[in-house]
């Protein structure tokens, strides 16, 4: 049973790496898109409700459905999975960017203005740093869900740890599925811990919780 693992170590490593890529890239792209959108939405309030409606609807789209909807354009490739997961990450990160920026106490922004900060400098050095914990909370959800959802990409033939689920099911071989599940969970938790560490280093003024 368990001898399957050492015998297939290189396969497991390769799938883990693919899964990592399919999980982390979308979350990063999602963050890159969410930041400007979130900054706009936090500043001009009318912009946010329609964006939030679109985000809620997109988030309701099943991952498999979004994968297959992208097939005519991008084929059965990594790109299809990465774009779809980027959309989902965006949906969880954007609301947090907006909440983080809006949560900056008015007294703090007024103090910054009084000290002669212009709008851009205040955004970069006061508002965004204070919003970091909330933004990273969203990023954590984005990374963990992307890593977990990437395995569904296997159903359209994009390889990830999901390969072990499908292959294990076809061969009725639970060991393979255990390895896949454990791999996904470990990958997600490691990324999550890294983000917690990033948050701590970016916000040294906060209590270590």
């Amino acid at each position, binding site marked *: 049973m368990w001898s399957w693992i050492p015998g297939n170590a290189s396969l497991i490593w390769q799938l883990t790496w693919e899964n990592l890529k399919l999980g982390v890239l979308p979350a990063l792209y999602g963050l890159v898109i969410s930041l400007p959108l979130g900054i706009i939405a936090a500043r001009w309030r009318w912009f946010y409700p329609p964006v939030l409606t679109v985000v809620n*609807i997109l988030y309701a789209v099943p991952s*498999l459905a979004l994968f297959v909807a992208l097939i005519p354009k991008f084929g059965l490739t990594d790109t299809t999975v990465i774009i779809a997961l980027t959309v989902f990450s965006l949906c969880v990160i954007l609301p947090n960017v907006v909440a983080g920026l809006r949560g900056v106490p008015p007294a703090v922004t007024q103090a910054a203005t009084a000290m002669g900060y212009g709008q851009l400098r205040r955004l970069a050095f006061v508002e965004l740093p204070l919003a970091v914990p909330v933004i990273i909370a969203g990023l954590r959800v984005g990374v963990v869900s992307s890593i977990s959802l990437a395995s569904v990409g296997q159903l359209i033939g994009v390889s990830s740890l999901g390969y072990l689920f499908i292959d294990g099911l076809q061969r009725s*071989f639970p060991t393979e599925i255990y390895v896949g599940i454990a791999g996904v969970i470990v990958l997600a938790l490691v990324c999550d811990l890294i983000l917690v560490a990033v948050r701590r280093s970016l916000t040294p003024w906060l209590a270590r919780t």
Partner: protein
Amino acid sequence: MSFFSWAWDWVTTGANWHGADSIPQQVLAHLGYSGLALLIATLIAVPAGVAIGHRGGKAAVVVTNFANAWRAIPTLGLLTLLAVFLGFSALTWLLPLVALGIPPVLVNACEGVAGVDPGVRDAAKGAGMTTWQQIASVEVPIALPLILVGLRTSAIFVVATATLAAEIGLGGLGRFIIDGLASSEYGPVAGGALLVVILAICVLALFALISRLAVPAGLRKQGRPE
């Protein structure tokens, strides 16, 4: 051809609406799986979340962290694992869907109740309410908007993921997608995907309606919690 033209052609083909494994049957199967899973998840998560939120303190923080870690469990993995052990029994599809549906409801119920203004709690106590009365007629109604947000999230997760049940040989709208992929026919794949999306949007609309009707008038003005 684009996704939508493929999907539209397939959905508007009359033959797909009649007979065994037709669109109406698979929609019903999909709603059946999702509805039952959501019901069980709600029956477990709402009382648990309310109880933990009512007690407050560290437990509420633990629940939130626990629920976040829970997200890491890949549903497809759980589904295939159970299929290997249990075959095509009801538990095979029910357990993963219930497991998926619990965390959002649990976290929101817990946060909603824990977040009730202490002044309001004291007032309820001061007015002579028993603990049960406080929970049932003060804390839960105040937490209701947040509980509904949790239910909506769960419902969306469950409806979306019920698609995967087809991978282990069950019905539902995923049937069209999985079979279409297996036989390299894009029509049913696109059509099935479109129908799941429509179903998910209907669920969103349903919850928008429910929260309008169920949330007490006095709480509505505060705006929607996220």
